[in-house]
């Protein structure tokens, strides 16, 4: 009996302290860590079509089509099949593919989750967080773009 009363006292203590742990989603957008891995964003301007991302992808989520001159034609990524391991971003030598913090994506059918390069380009940043800057601040220098702000568009 004492144990049960102690348990009730514990719940009462927390019921009365007025603290809420959760946020009211979607009215309040939750805080997401800068390292969080969400939907990809792809930059055709940066991509050198080396196909490293396609090779490293553990479950064939990325499909690239090139013509016989090795010019890129298509870059398709199935964001519903992706396991969000971020290996594509990790191996990309020019940071052409990034994982934004954006975790909100919906579709009527699973096929609509196959994003082509235009759709991938238009994925919005989440709360304006720059993933590259927050994850690999030294990567900018590595690709020779100086120290200033980088505009990925």
């Amino acid at each position, binding site marked *: *009996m*004492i*144990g*049960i009363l*102690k*348990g009730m*006292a*514990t*719940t009462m203590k*927390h019921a009365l302290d007025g603290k809420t*742990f959760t946020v009211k989603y979607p009215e309040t957008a939750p805080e*997401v*860590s*800068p*390292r*969080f*891995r969400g939907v990809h964003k792809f930059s055709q301007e940066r991509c050198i079509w080396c196909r490293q991302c396609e090779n*490293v992808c*553990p479950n064939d989520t990325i499909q690239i089509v090139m013509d016989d001159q090795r010019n890129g034609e298509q870059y398709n990524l199935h964001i519903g099949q992706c*396991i*969000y*391991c*971020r*290996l594509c971003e*990790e*191996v990309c030598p020019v940071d052409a593919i990034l994982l934004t913090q954006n975790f909100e994506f919906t579709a009527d059918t699973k096929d609509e989750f196959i994003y082509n390069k235009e759709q991938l380009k238009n994925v919005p940043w989440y709360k304006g967080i720059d993933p590259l800057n927050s*994850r690999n*601040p030294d990567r900018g220098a590595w690709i020779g773009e100086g120290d200033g702000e980088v505009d990925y568009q």
Partner: protein
Amino acid sequence: MSTEAVSDVPAESDRSGILAPVTASLIGRETHRNAPAGRIKPQDVPDVLRTLKTESGLDHLSCVTAQQYPDRYETMYHLRSYDDPTQEASIVVPTSSEEPRSTSGTTAFQTAAWHEREAFDLVGIEYDDHPDLRRILLPETWQGHPLSLDYDQDQPQIVPLREQDGSAHAIASEGREGTMFINIGPHHPATHGVMHLKLTLDGEQVAAVEPDIGYIHRCEEQMAQNCTYRYQIMPYPDRWDWSGGGLLNEWAYARAAESLADIEVPEYAQVLRTMSAEFSRILAHMLAAGAYALDVSGDFTATFMYAINERERVQKILEDLTGQRLMFNYFRLGGVVWDLPEPRSEFFEQVRSYLDGLPERLTDIHNLLTGNEIIQTRTVDTGVLPAEVAKDYGCTGPVARGSGVDYDLRRDDPYGYYDRLEWNVITEPDGDNYSRLLVRLQEVEESAKIIDQCVDLLEEWPVDERTIQSNVPRTIRPDDDTEGYWAVEAAKGELGIYMRADGTEKPARFKIRGPSFSNLQALPAMTVGGQVPDLIATLGSLDTIMGEVDR
């Protein structure tokens, strides 16, 4: 796997003399990276295992691996000692390609029963004298053995309903008049995933129980065999034990692959690994405790929320560190992917404030859960698992430690930074459901101690020595025919991986020893003779995650 005649064995391979008691039965030696290994004939299996158990003290059959070579089949028994897991040996049993027939080791170790069934199911080796050689993961009507070399993946697996064996009740209640057959699961909330218990009741008593597993068999072993060592395998271990133990699972793969390919890990990365892995353990244990409260009685919804609340705090920290809340993919071969998030002082403050509040919150959970008379009535002296039985079934982790088996690979077979930190292995002597619950909650405290020391170390680490990854090439090709079995202490127990390289960038055989697989096997031993509610309470206390049972 070079084979040599017994007479000209290099002296150091048998330095420990661990195989000495069975020298007469050996027909050859093999080179395994982790332990001395000897080949024996199929008919000698029970005797050799028994001799090693009694005379060399190898009382823990951690894993049985089966695989097919172009010219033969092999069954491998990975043995180690509960007292000192660094004492290990592998027994290899080659059998011919035409008729893969070996002898079962069940008379020496109960745990061999399920492991051999899995070998039969996936690879296709048959075991004489096995008490119950049936498929275990795949449906009974499956055609072919998926991990054998000549398996046709495109073969249709269409079987009419009449072919399905409906004899489960008949078998279970054979010779028991007036019993009732009941299915629990596969969609029962207390089975934590999809598991099916075939239960035979005699009145209110459990007369027989047989776990039917394999509902979420996801071919994890084969998937790993189709992935490259360097990058592609690492995201998958997170998905074996999805309760939050992801980083611990990743460490199992990291340890095995680093040992196989001789990759160094910088000290700094080891501290990061140790810290993050212990956070992962807190996540897993908190889910176990919270969900257990729900299993035992629906009145504990509030307690569940407190445990989830605790997980949320840890998940926030891990999200800042690894970028994901459950499927971390944080470890890499040779280190980790990221250093601590900048600014470091802010991160340390976050961790410190978490650790400072933890004792009070644990007291709350103890007040809500372990101090509660309802929980005590339901769990004390139910589902008792004596230490000897636990060892026979290869139980590890909190299940074994709750039975007083003092076995923790973090201390006994040290890796990472554990051996340089101050912490204790928690054991409880009683072996009942309550003990297992207590062990988990106390282990959270120990994890907090470890994290606290890691934070101290990280704070003082010199700036220019913060190497998070050693220099590992983009493609790793371990030498042909190197093989070995390595394990770490995951949230549920000993998570081991056997890997064999064939000179390519992908493993030729990748065997996962999921701790829940062995723990679950002990369920009948703990529940037969008890009542149904106790069965549910016992099942919950094993904290099985079906992802690593079915793989």
